[in-house]
């Protein structure tokens, strides 16, 4: 495909970070810019946290000094994006990259096509670590072992509570927000299982969520097995303790979505899947950059947006 459409900058992922890059580039008059998002709407992960009266807001908007619903925060960012000239391709996935040629292969409702760009920014976000990746969870593969993303899907999307007596695996902010959302929807107080001595969420965060949840915290669990046949009935630790439940939510410990980089040949550290970063969040091939949660670790949505803005500056210098 030689007639690939060419852009000044291509942004992979329309979450807070990708929006930040687009807004930053627009402010600097860089164009044309294309932003590619595989879901049906702009906004990324926060969009799954719908605004509900009486619900649990879990996204800190530092600039307003408030905690809001993900949807509100993402919605405000999306409005800023709409004011720019950025070309937006929704329901379109980048399926392959060629780092040397700065070429992307896209798949969407218009079919398959290639585009090229002078610079590419990877803002593909992160996902939650799977049980196998954790390396300390084994046992049965039953139903009702899901991720926080499923919880928001069932609860905010369909009004269904996936577990009435939940076990939460993980103890970061995402785990507390999951526990709070379930309590708020009428579940029992969850048990929170983690390898750590103390929860990974900070004191302030835990304090914030006390209004909704005070999960049971056994702490320092070294290895556990999932019990059940067709459905989950509980978790058992290697020292013989058991925690019954009717569903388990695997929370947090984010893994960056770096597979495009990894399979495309950009430098990625294994097995952590972390991008190798140079100054200014540049990647191993000139003209490639990254921003937001794809950098690894946990970053709040607003931080990701401002991180995207900052990378826009580096990108415009590069150009």
């Amino acid at each position, binding site marked *: 495909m030689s007639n690939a459409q060419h852009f000044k900058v291509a942004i992979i992922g329309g979450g807070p970070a990708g929006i930040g890059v687009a807004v930053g580039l627009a402010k600097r008059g860089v164009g044309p810019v294309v932003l590619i998002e595989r879901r049906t709407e702009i906004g990324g992960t926060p969009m799954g946290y719908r605004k509900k009266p009486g619900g649990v807001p879990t996204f800190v908007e530092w600039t307003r000094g408030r905690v809001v619903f993900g949807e509100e925060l993402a919605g405000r960012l999306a409005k800023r994006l709409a004011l720019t000239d950025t070309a937006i391709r929704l329901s379109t996935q980048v399926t392959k990259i060629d780092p040397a040629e700065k070429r992307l292969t896209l798949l969407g*409702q218009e079919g398959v096509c290639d585009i090229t760009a002078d610079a590419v920014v990877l803002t593909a976000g992160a996902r939650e670590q799977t049980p196998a990746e954790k390396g300390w969870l084994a046992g049965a593969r039953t139903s*009702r072992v899901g991720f926080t993303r499923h919880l928001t899907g069932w609860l905010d999307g369909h009004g269904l509570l996936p577990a*009435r007596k939940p076990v939460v695996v993980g103890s970061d902010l995402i785990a507390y927000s999951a526990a709070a959302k379930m309590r708020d929807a009428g579940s029992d107080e969850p048990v929170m299982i983690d390898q750590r001595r103390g929860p990974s969420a900070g004191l302030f965060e835990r304090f914030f969520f006390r209004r909704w949840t005070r999960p049971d915290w056994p702490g320092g669990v070294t290895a556990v097995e999932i019990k059940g046949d067709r459905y989950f009935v509980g978790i058992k630790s290697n020292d013989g303790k058991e925690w019954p439940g009717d569903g388990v939510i695997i929370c947090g410990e984010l893994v960056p979505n770096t597979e495009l980089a990894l399979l495309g040949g950009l430098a990625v550290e294994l097995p952590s899947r972390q991008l190798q970063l140079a100054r200014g969040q540049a990647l191993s091939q000139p003209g490639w950059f990254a921003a937001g949660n794809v950098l690894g670790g946990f970053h709040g949505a607003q931080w990701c947006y401002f991180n995207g803005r900052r990378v826009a500056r580096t990108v415009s210098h590069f150009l």
Partner: protein
Amino acid sequence: MTQFGTWQPKIRGRLFYNWPCGTCEEALRFISPVQLGSKPYDVAIVGAGVVGCALAYRLSMYDLRVLLVERLHDVGEGTSKANSALIHTGYDAKPGTLESELLREAAAYWPDLAARLKIPLDPIGGIMMAVTDEQERQLEVAKKNAYANRATDVSILSAAEVREREPNASSDVCGGLLVPRESMIDPFMASIAYAEVALVNGIDLLLGVDIAGVELGQALHHLITADGHRLPACRIVNAAGLGSRRLADGYGGGAFDINPRRGQFVLFDQSARSLVRHILLPVPTVNTKGVLVSPTIFGNLLVGPTAEDLPLDDPEAAHTTLEGIRRVIEGGSCLVSGLTEQPVVATYAGARCACNQGSYVIRYNDGAPGLVTLTGVRSTGLTASISLARHLIDGMQKELGLELSPDIEALDTRPESAWPGWWRRPFANDTVDARVDHGCVVCFCEVISEGEIRDALDSPLKPRTMDALKRRTRSMMGRCQGFDCQVPLAEIMSSHTGITISQLTKNGPGSELVAPSQRAFTA
């Protein structure tokens, strides 16, 4: 216009799900045997593992009334879904045994069979790798054994020759045995393709029906379901795998002892695929074939299995343990360096049907005339399924007086357009032009579109559980393990079939994706 990916043959057989709470379409629901007609079946097969499905496929070529009954809510959901996914040449079998014969016969069938049934198969070949001097000496023995099995295309490799072929081979490698034709396959599609063609050809398939017993008669027997229904059949084949003992007890079948031999696996990311070029096999010991390192047809790297004997009916026979996973990685690392740096995608376990009386135990007129017991199909049933089916049909002709006349309408092929084609059909613009939902990606890791999901739901053997959908499409099988796509997939399944979200299950009643609100929780 022909719609891409859809296959609309005339389906002559009937498919029913036993789903007490009514969570599938009315037309698919099994309510009473009246739905199956009053004529007794010529052959009823209990167990729709890969073996039962292959037998149904072969029997469907003849003018016979055949019933295939399965306890679970899809075909191939027992041992047949959790194995090494290899088609063996039988080079390492015990010469002169039935197993050796069946494997040799099957290995010759597979390339053509896979093409006809559209089962992804890749004959990449294997290398048995010696990593100690003692093992190196054993290569000669293995070679002689292969020759005795008429696998004369094997050859001994020096350490340098192994390294040339496998740059990431462990530094301990001191020789190898090249085994051409060892192949990797899509293990799920084998059962599904067999059963699908059998269904089109007119066999009846009951899913979710547990056979609790057999009522013996003079010329006519009845299978008794756990719900008390009676299903009449002149001949019954017990292909129930690890359930074969319990079933045989129901008709007074002869003595045999079986137990699950658990095999655990670790599946690595696609990034690990390039570590190896062949299927790497360790030199076997008396007890086990050992941990192998193999690419998968889907582009991942598979390491395993363990061999752990557990008591019959152990509920944890297909569970993973941290100890097992550790041993798998340790075993794999003996063959390949760099494994531990690779990201893991999933772990799983399967249970071989290990039998004290040997492998491939077949008894005709076992306990009563017309009953066939098949058990001990331990470690090679996926490969041997097709030749074993041939062997069983020959045996039934001889021993049970089964008469065969070909069914002229029968197909032995799935059409080119048969769903799925993802593995050989890169996304093309005309696919998306024909139906726009083929361009809506739902499973991002494996790049599966909404159109393919809908095609799968409409395929002849209609999947109605999330796991059944997953095995047909590979959705939820990628690195995120359903993180992004599980809920959207459930939404598509629900809108396509009318099953409400709260009634959707992972693998049948009891495994609802969200906890049933009424269930009183008991610890």
